[in-house]
């Protein structure tokens, strides 16, 4: 079971990647110096473009601008218009053409500018990206990576803070992953691009400028594994993407109160790593899952349901879900009332019957 540490996320900012210039150009460098998640993602694409001539990158503003978050910064300049380019402004068009390219042997890495702007491509993703391989009895695989800056925490206006993971995770044929730190961002994106299955790659936009030290990133876990990012004995906190940092903060606070919390970073939302999660839950006998998306029918429902199915007689209390409310994502000045935070998680856990 690999263990990595995660520094608390820096205050979110939408300003350009300041260190874009010094983006490392291979994996080694990634583990040698602190870098941001933005730089790690950029580096992963840069290395993939260098290694495999079939890798192409296109989408809205991913060319000369380097994307609205500057994640593709410098790639159009260094690899040219035939490898990295701006597409017309149409998400179904981006995914639909990526499908045709993948059928001909390319490995497109495309960007949806925000979760809510992937919705126009919903049919292409659900009816084709997810189903083509099954439809053709395994003859046509679609090695496509769909990058989506996800979730809130940056004071984005309406439609800029959605969390769409539940829609994708419920769709057979898709692989859905989300990194919570720079080292994973690099290794997971590299693996996603190498995968012959289509991957929905959710990037927690509030973490783009999060920095991480080299020594914490020694051995990246495989793409489909969850990781225990902090060990504990009393409670298992299941988190992913932007909520991993929240879970770690919660664990720190709980420690002061003498509660030992184990924090798991799920990393791969589909497939789900039952092995790692069940082992932890059977040790702690209590679990809670944290996410930003609305609770009803959210990804946490699957987590709670399967953890309970597989570990019912080991559970001392119901699996808790600390999530967004069942409302549309709030306007910027109100998001702090919506996003899960440590105090809310601790008080939720205090509702458990502790003497069983």
């Amino acid at each position, binding site marked *: 079971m690999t263990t990595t540490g995660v520094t608390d996320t820096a205050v979110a900012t939408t300003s350009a990647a300041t260190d874009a210039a010094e983006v490392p150009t291979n994996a080694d460098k990634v583990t040698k110096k602190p870098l941001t998640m933005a730089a790690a993602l950029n580096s992963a694409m840069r290395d993939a473009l260098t290694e495999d001539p079939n890798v192409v990158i296109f989408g809205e503003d991913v060319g000369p601008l380097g994307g609205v978050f500057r994640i593709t910064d410098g790639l159009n300049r260094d690899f040219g218009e035939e490898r990295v380019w701006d597409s017309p402004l149409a998400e179904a068009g981006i995914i639909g053409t990526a499908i045709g390219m993948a059928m001909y042997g390319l490995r497109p890495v495309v960007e949806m500018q925000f979760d809510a702007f992937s919705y126009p491509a919903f049919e292409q993703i659900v009816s084709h990206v997810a189903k083509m391989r099954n439809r053709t009895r395994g*003859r046509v695989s679609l090695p496509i990576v769909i990058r989506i800056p996800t979730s809130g925490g940056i004071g984005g206006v309406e439609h800029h803070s959605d969390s769409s993971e539940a829609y994708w995770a419920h769709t057979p044929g898709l692989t859905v992953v989300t990194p919570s730190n720079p080292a994973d961002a690099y290794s997971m994106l590299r693996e996603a691009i190498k995968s012959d299955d289509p991957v929905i790659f959710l990037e927690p936009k509030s973490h783009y400028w999060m920095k991480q030290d080299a020594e914490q990133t020694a051995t990246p876990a495989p793409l489909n594994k969850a990781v225990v990012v902090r060990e504990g004995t009393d409670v298992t906190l299941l988190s992913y993407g932007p909520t991993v940092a929240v879970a770690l903060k919660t664990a720190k606070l709980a420690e002061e109160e003498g509660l030992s919390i184990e924090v798991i970073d799920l990393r791969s939302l589909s497939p789900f790593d039952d092995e790692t999660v069940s082992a932890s839950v059977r040790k702690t006998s209590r679990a809670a899952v944290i996410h930003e998306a609305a609770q009803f029918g959210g990804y946490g429902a699957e987590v709670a349901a399967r953890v309970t199915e597989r570990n019912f007689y080991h559970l001392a209390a119901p699996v808790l879900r600390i999530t967004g409310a069942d409302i549309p994502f709030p306007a910027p000045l109100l998001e702090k009332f919506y996003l899960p935070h440590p105090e809310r998680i601790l008080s939720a856990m205090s509702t458990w019957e502790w003497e069983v």
Partner: protein
Amino acid sequence: MSLIDETRDTRVLPDTEPFRLIDDTGNAVAAKLRRGFTLPDIDTLKELYRKMVVARRWDTQVTALTRQGRLSTYPSSRGQEACEIGTVMAMQENDWLFPTYRDSIAVWTRGVSTSEILSGFRGDWHCGWDPKAHRVAPQATPLATQTLHAVGLGTAAKLKNDPIATVAFIGDGATSEGDAHEGFNFAGVWQAPTVFIIQNNQFAISVPISKQTRARMLADKAVGYGMPGYHVDGNDIAAVYVVVSEALNRARNGGGPTMIECLTYRVEPHTNSDDPSRYRDSADVDLWKGRDPVERLEKYLQSQGALTDELRESIAKESEDAATAMRDAMNEEPALDPMELFENVYVSPRAALIEQRDALTAELADASTEGKAS
């Protein structure tokens, strides 16, 4: 030789009168109406005729089997042979075809076997053939989505400097979908080697073309994408063949995409479960049956004395062979392996799917021991 001004002044819109080389009565049109195109040579026309006749026999046989309830559904291509065969015959081996559920005879004429095609309609699997083996994509059901796949594949080939073209079939109704617009537009901007064949058979199930667009014709959309737009008599295979050939050559040579509207008519119900009496006048159907694409070319060939008995016989034989092959294909018990349901979803097997597969295996074992049909 072009329907559009060579300066690519896209202000020249297609004529409302569809372009044809052979008219309803089976006569070649006056030279001045040929717009610089020449009629295919007689051998080519004979070959086009042969393929149409055989394809119609094939289609008729599937329709019959469907009426007998042996297929879950089948959307007939009848009456659209000129569009389907004229297009496929203009394609080269390395070109890619992106068909819809409507275009089974095009898929078959392209070389996909009958039983591979029947898989989807019989219901043993969604797509029965290897798209890469024939360069024929699965028949698209979600309307207009395939136009983007055709543009993407064509663009990939262009990036790899492979001189191929892609063909996307699309119906009149499907042009109303957002994906049709995005397909046309990406093709224009990227100058993809893609030819869009709009088969305007004047109905989308029950909805007439007049409820799909206010434009004079669908080909008028081309100018909005900066690509040439052609308006062709879709029941004249000679016209379809020469126009598509020109467009495909232009595409393969870096000249970008073309939109070709083929005006035709869906003489059969949408599918076997449709009831056209609810929405259209049988008189219209008869009118269009009178404009039959096969008969038209037949008349022309006759007038040229090209329709020899020997040709008739070989075509008749080929047709019967096709029908027989079809019946044989239907009599093959499709190999149904429920376990395959779990095999193709992902390249890398997943623990959860293996659990589910094993559960089904156990269930089927129980059922058979209990002698129950699961």
